Each structure stands twice: as C-alpha cells, then as structure tokens.
C-alpha cells in the first residue's frame, strides 16, 4: 500500500471521480437515496446512482411491472421518475446536506433529450458525476436502442461529453450484440468510465393463461441469477480496454460478490436488486469491505484486476461446452 492508501484504504478513483470507497448503489434500485435514510448512513457509501432522470416527469409502464424469477426478478418499470427539475429542487439539496456522493443517472428518447438533462444538471451543487443510461430494455424509444449500436453509442456519448465537464459514466447494455465494441465506442466518445451491466432482457409467461407476466411483455432480469454473466462481461471489457475504469454491476449482495467484481477488473461496484430485499445491504458491505481490507492489510485499489494475469483463459469458452 502507498502511504495514502494506508490512511484511506478504501478510497478509489474511477477516472476523475474520487470515491471514499468502491460501494455504490445502482440506478433504479435506490430511488433518490433519501428513501434509504432510515436503513443506511448514506454519507458512508461510496456514492449513489439516482433513479434515471428525464427532462420531463415520466409515468412509466402499466402494471404488472415486476415478477420474481429464480434468484432474481424481472422488471419493466419503464423509467418512472420525477424529472430533472424536481430532482434538483426537492432531492439534491437534501442529499447534499447528508453529505452523499451523488451520481445522476440520465436517460432520454433522443440525443437532444440526454444533452438537455445533462445541461440542466451542469451547474447543480453537490453532484459528483453523471451516468448515462443507454441500456434500459423497458422503453419504446431511446434507452437500449443507443446501447445496442456502437455507432449510436459513440455519437451520443460525444454529444453529451461536449455538454458536461463532470465525470461521465456510461452504463452499457449486456444485450448489445458486441459489448466490447459498445464499450470501445463509449470510451472513444469521451466516457470517463463504464458501468457494466444493466439488466438482461428476459420474459416470464404465466403457464395457465399463456400471457406474459409483465404488461410490457419482456423485462430486465437482475439479481444473483445474472452475476456470473456480469462478471464475465467486466472481465472481458477489462481485458479488451486496459486502463478504462469499470464499475461492476450484477447480483451483488455479499462481500464475496464485491471482491469477485474487483478481481475481474472493476474499480467500484453498484449494489442493485439486493437493496429491495435488504435495504441496509449497501452500508453493511462498506463495513465488511473495510474489515476485510484492514484484516488483510490491503487497500481496495490493490484488489482491482487480480484475476488478470492468472490465466491463460479462453473468453469464448463455454459456448461450445
């Protein structure tokens, strides 16, 4: 450990974004943060990612919107949110007073919409970074449509990059035809870091009625069920784009899950669906990581990427059994 690391063993840098520790909470699973104030000391988290913000308030999809699945759930909420203005007026000042590191998650139908939301946020006090959601599978327009095409990804990120001086994270879709190409496009467009991954498009059908369980038809799969898929994707992008800061997401609910993502090459992680079943989980993971690092005499930074260089590994293995 460096002298700085031994003083602040959990501190990590995600590109230009300095975090007190690598434990973040994932957009869409943590509301606007304040909902968790009874359960978590929000100021002790590495940071929170807000519910995806759009220019105007958005009502979301018709119910049923969620459905439990083995070791996880499907959701098709449809990005219901209060809109960027209400966030700035009603939520951000309270988050600021609690000392929370806030990452604003942003989405839109068109490039212009993303740019407009980012502009609205640009001069807000108490915002640490912006995360672009180009990977929501549950809206008709925008969202995943940007994430599924490297060209569209690159173009959008470039335009948003030009509109903000803040650290810019881009949250990628695991449903993209070629995740590495999308990651490269986001990096080349000016992303400071990549959040990997959003939910996987899935479906559940009621066997009695033969109708989809979600009114949207399909939904995004999250929870422990997706963790090995997400770990593989973080590992793969870390290998393809050395030096690009990555934030790992997918089924994290225990310390060992955090360590797994860090080993795969993530500098920080986001806790998602686990917040629903255990609202105190994010705070507990910070404490557990702290105990782990001090017990081992190791910094969080030193845990990053340890799985690399231990192979040879075949990343295409598995498909052919």
């Amino acid at each position, binding site marked *: 450990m460096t002298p700085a690391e031994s003083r602040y063993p959990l501190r990590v840098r995600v590109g230009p974004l300095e975090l007190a520790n690598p434990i973040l909470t994932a957009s869409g699973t943590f509301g606007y943060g304040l909902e968790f104030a009874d359960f978590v000391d929000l100021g002790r988290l590495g940071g929170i990612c807000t519910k995806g913000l759009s220019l105007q308030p958005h009502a979301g999809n018709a119910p049923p919107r969620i459905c439990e699945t*083995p070791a996880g759930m499907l959701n098709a909420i449809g990005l219901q949110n209060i809109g960027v203005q209400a966030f700035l007026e009603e939520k951000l000042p309270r988050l600021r007073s609690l000392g929370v590191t806030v990452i604003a998650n942003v989405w839109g139908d068109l490039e212009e919409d993303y740019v407009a939301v980012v502009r609205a946020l640009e001069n807000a006090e108490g915002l640490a970074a912006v995360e672009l959601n180009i990977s929501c599978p549950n809206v008709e327009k925008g969202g995943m449509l940007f994430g599924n095409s490297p060209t569209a990804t690159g173009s959008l990120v470039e335009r948003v990059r030009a509109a903000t001086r803040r650290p810019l994270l881009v949250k990628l879709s695991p449903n993209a035809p070629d995740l590495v190409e999308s990651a490269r496009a986001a990096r080349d467009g000016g992303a400071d870091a990549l959040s990997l991954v959003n939910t996987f498009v899935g479906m559940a059908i009621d066997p009695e009625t033969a109708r989809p369980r979600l009114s949207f038809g399909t939904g995004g799969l999250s929870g422990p069920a997706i963790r090995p898929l997400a770990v593989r994707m973080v590992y793969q992008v870390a290998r393809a784009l050395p030096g690009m800061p990555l934030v790992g997401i997918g089924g994290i609910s225990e310390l060992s899950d955090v360590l797994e993502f860090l080993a795969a090459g993530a500098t920080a992680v986001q806790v998602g669906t686990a917040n629903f079943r255990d*609202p105190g989980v994010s705070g507990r993971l910070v404490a557990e990581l702290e105990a782990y690092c001090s017990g081992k005499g190791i910094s969080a930074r030193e845990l990053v990427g340890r799985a690399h260089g231990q192979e040879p590994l075949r990343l295409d293995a598995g498909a052919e059994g």
Partner: protein
Amino acid sequence: MRSDHTALLLSTRFFSPGLFSATFSSPRLAGEIAPGQFVMLDLPGRIRPYLRRAYSVADADPGRGEVEFLVKTIGAGTAALESLRAGQDARLLGPLGNSFSLTGLPAGSRVAVVAGGIGAAPFPLLWRALRAGGWTGDFFFGGRTASDLALSKRFAGVVAGDTYLATNDGSAGEAGFVTDLFARHAASGGYARVFACGPMPMFAALARVVERLQLSAEFSTEAEMGCGFGVCLGCVIPGRHTPYLVSCQEGPILPPERIDWSQVTGGSQVTGDR
C-alpha cells in the same frame, strides 16, 4: 421508525390446511404498528423466494411484544413462512405504509368492515382500535367456498357488532357475493365509514356500491411489491388524478375514488406469490 426487526416465531395456529396465523415476538414493532400497516417479511438463509413478501399486520399486543399475521399459502413466499418452526427467526421490515384512518369518525358512529378471503388479514387490529375508540359496526366476510371462511374463527369476540358471511357457492353463509350482501345492509346501515380488503374484482364491485351510496371508504390495496418502501415502483395501481399510485408508499390504504377502476384489469394486480 422503519427498521428491519429480527423476530422470533412463537407459534402458528391453523384454521384449515394452508390457512394459518403466525405470531412473532417483536416488541418494538408491536408498539409501533397501526391498523392497516404492513411489513416485508424475510426468512434468512433461503434461496427461494428471492424477494420479501408483504404481510399486513393482523394484530399486535404491545404488552406482550407480539405481532400476528394471518396467512394463506399460495406460493413460494407463503409456503416458506408456513414451514417456519416456532423458535426460528424471520426479519420484519416495518412498519410500512399508511394506516386505516379513524380520525374524523364521529363518536359512537357505526362502521362496516368488508373482507374477501385472506383480505380479512388486517382486520383484527382494526377492530381492536375501533373498540378502544368506542365505535361499533358490522363485519362482512366473503369467500368462494366455506373453506375460505375458516378464518371467521379468528374473529370470534373480535367484531364489535354483527358478522355476515357469504360464499359464492353457498357452502357457508349466504350464497352470492359479499359486496351484494354488504350493499343490502349499507342502504340502511348508517355506516360512517367502510373499511375493505380483498381481491381487485371485489374492490371494483365495492367501489361502485360506495360511490352510489356516497359512503366514505378506505381500501387496503395490495399490488405485488418488490421492496415495500417506495423504491422499486413495481406495485403501482392506475390512478384517477395521477397516472399511477404507488401502493406501498401512497397506500396501501387508499380511498376508492383515487383509483381508476377502468384501468384495473381483472385480477392482474392481485399479489402473485409465485
């Protein structure tokens, strides 16, 4: 304050197969819970179900530090609770949601409580509060068949007034819908408020009755909940003045006039405990 309480299962009591009462020791919760509020229940160490399940608190005894739930086994979550043994722990996140409102209820007035099947779950605690406030009223309890009404044993000595039963097949009480039974009494019952809990089709029918008779009503809604504290936004119900009402946060107790019944599709908003 909302908190995640570790609670010891003290006892279970079966009314019929798959229909039971579970009593936990949870002193803080017992002292804080208001009629109609709910908890999200977690059974640590299990893989399935993944998400917690929402349960209305059926009764609370602050003196003994106990809370009770009335449960019908319909899926993975309720089956897991049924298999919990006395002496084992659960986690109860709560108190969550709003409560039945007794404010503004004129002293000595009469109320109606309408329950469909396991929708009877929140009402022992409400009756306790009504009795304590000197109110009386009638209890209308309906189900498909007599076995759905096995819970009526739990209400012996609980109701501050008369109990009327109805079953769709006529195997217990009156044959027909509990909402029709209620409507006949309500026309002349002089009820100051109607409290109801049951499946969405029952609610939709009851909403028409209370609107026609211009009765003040509160429905304990229950859409499938992912978190129970307003974050996942999974449990929305179509609203009349806003697109959606978040059941766990704005409810679960909602006046029927805030719900857009034309958008409520038959049964699809009823809890699925798969």
